[in-house]
């Protein structure tokens, strides 16, 4: 591939290019169905309010997927962390006032992240050091953490937070909603961390072939431990955003997002076998999912139909890939040989 197309592919990546194509098609289809309202104030606002929550949770899931793992406990962790923050915030000693109260809020957020880190530590220990399969380990921690949250709150809601926290979920800066800013503030550094630093490259390599990385003298166990710590830390931020937006915390918020985060990641080109995937792909996939959701709302379609369309679009994309790979030998014969073997692992998750 030479010329303009080649440059474009190298710059954006083949997967992302395909996703952008899909996004363009959907924009045209929905745009003609819905009309101007799709990108009107209401449409944009509904997109901006929903995308960051699913987005942050998907980012957390992505880190685990990249290492050929899976973290089913992200949402449970997010909720436990949010409940911790909520509990500390709603139990401010009456004597506090002024800047001290501000520091109390900062402390609450840090405590929430620390609780999430504990869950990450448990996940990481089970997966990296005890070699438990990631699905099993995180299935266990998910049940444990959610059970803890339900046990402590009896399924109830903790609500009523100071304005500074509510601002994180509902406010906006320069016209940009705060959740979007938080999402960008996580996605951008994470993208750099995963694709431009030794840590990120080792994670991806370990995701492709852990044994090879281990043989080259890198302690993959420590890397995996950090992967799950990172997952939980991002999840706790997702919990914070959810909590701030609803002005309340609960053990079961966002439960239905669990499988959707995996769906979003796979749609975004993150290989569930590990090793391949970019944050940018995930972001485009999230925009696609959000566009479908918003269009459904504006067309007065059932919110449940959105779920169907999300699942359907993943199957269609995968079907396209499968057909393409079946005809790949034919196409390759007409082009120059592929430079890298495709990522086909024998590990199933």
């Amino acid at each position: 591939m030479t010329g303009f197309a080649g440059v474009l592919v190298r710059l954006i990546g083949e997967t992302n290019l395909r996703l952008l194509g899909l996004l363009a098609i959907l924009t045209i289809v929905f745009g003609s169905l819905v009309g101007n309202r799709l990108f009107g104030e209401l449409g944009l606002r509904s997109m901006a309010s929903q995308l960051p929550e699913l987005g942050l949770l998907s980012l957390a899931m992505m880190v685990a997927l990249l290492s050929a793992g899976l973290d089913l406990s992200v949402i449970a962790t997010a909720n436990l962390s949010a409940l911790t923050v909520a509990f500390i915030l709603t139990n401010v000693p009456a004597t506090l006032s002024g800047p001290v109260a501000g520091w109390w809020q900062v402390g609450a957020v840090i405590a929430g992240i620390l609780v999430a880190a504990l869950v990450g530590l448990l996940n990481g220990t089970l997966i990296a050091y005890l070699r438990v399969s990631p699905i099993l380990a995180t299935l266990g921690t998910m049940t444990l953490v959610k059970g803890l949250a339900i046990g402590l709150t009896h399924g109830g809601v903790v609500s009523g937070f100071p304005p500074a926290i509510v601002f994180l979920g509902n406010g906006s800066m320069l016209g940009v909603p705060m959740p979007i800013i938080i999402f960008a503030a996580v996605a951008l550094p994470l993208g750099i961390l995963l694709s431009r630093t030794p840590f990120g490259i080792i994670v991806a390599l370990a995701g492709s072939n852990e044994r090879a990385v281990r043989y080259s003298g890198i302690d993959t166990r420590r890397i995996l431990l950090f992967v799950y710590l990172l997952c939980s830390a991002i999840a706790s931020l997702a919990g914070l955003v959810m909590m701030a937006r609803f002005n309340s915390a609960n053990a079961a918020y966002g439960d239905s997002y669990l499988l959707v985060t995996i769906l979003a990641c796979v749609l975004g080109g993150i290989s569930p076998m590990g090793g391949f995937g970019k944050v940018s792909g995930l972001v485009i996939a999230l925009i696609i999912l959000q566009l479908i959701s918003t269009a459904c709302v504006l067309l007065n379609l059932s919110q449940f139909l959105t779920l169907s369309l999300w699942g359907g679009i993943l199957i269609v994309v995968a079907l396209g890939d499968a057909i393409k790979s079946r005809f790949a030998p034919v196409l390759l014969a007409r082009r120059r040989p592929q430079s890298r073997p495709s990522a086909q692992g024998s590990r199933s998750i």
Partner: protein
Amino acid sequence: MREALRRFRQAQEFWLALVIVLLVIVMSILRPNFLSLQNIFDLLGSYAFSGMLVAGLLVVLISGGIDISFAAVATVAQFVALTCANVYGIGWAGVTAIAAAIGLGLGLCNGLLVSTLGIASIIVTIATQSVIYGILLTVTKGQDIFALPPWFSAGIDWPIFTAHDGTQYSMNLQMLGLVAAFFITWLILNRTNVGRQIYALGGNREAAQRVGFNVFRLNLLVYGYMGLIAGLASIVQAQYTQSVSPTALVGRELDVVAAAVLGGASLNGGVGTVLGAILGVALVAILQNGLTILGVSSYWSQFVTGLVIIAAVASMARNVRRRWQNSPGLAA
């Protein structure tokens, strides 16, 4: 003989059985009515649905795949079959046939997609779950069905024996389904050629393919069987709860996975036994029922289940540390 004994001691089933026996002993000391026939019959009834699904999922897990969509499949089967029963007045045979056909059909779809898409089965079934469940909720608008035909609400009742205090114990639909599901699964896995092929497929897919097994057909069979069981289990569940709710089952898939895995089935495929699966369900059932009987708040039961899962998976990994040092990277 000693060799066989040693091998049995290393098996997951042995430890599981040991834990269950200990649990039962402790429970019956604390609460004498725990081992009463009444409580055992109650347990069998309330865990029939999960138990049947574990039997189906076991086959999928052994083949090296996983199915997340069974709860959505079951809900659809339940909803359509009992709506038909209400509208057209069909009987037991009709309801069962419709539920089985829907389950089988959706399961075959899963098998087809898993075979052709070439992506992990967990992803495929998450996608199909979303599609099926989304359509179901759109059509039903999340409405429950409470009015069921009287013959269905009555269920089946085959008296087994009458206790000396006059209480009659009888075989009900739940127990029948549970026994049938595990027995047929055992037959398929241990007494048929196909069963050996499924183990081979899960143990080493590439080798199974080269030996000449038809992987495509095996996949259809495995996911079709899971769907069929889900369809039948849905009827058992509807009869037990005396209602059909589109939202009650979906979201509990992972509990079933946990029970199957507690029973020693490996997510990597090729490993798992029917006995282990039964013990896995039994452990979860006895634990949760035990906590209830002990008067522990039901809010904490999920926490305890989580503890048990983590303890189980961690203990399964006991010998791994040494393996990691001897052959790095192999200890997976």
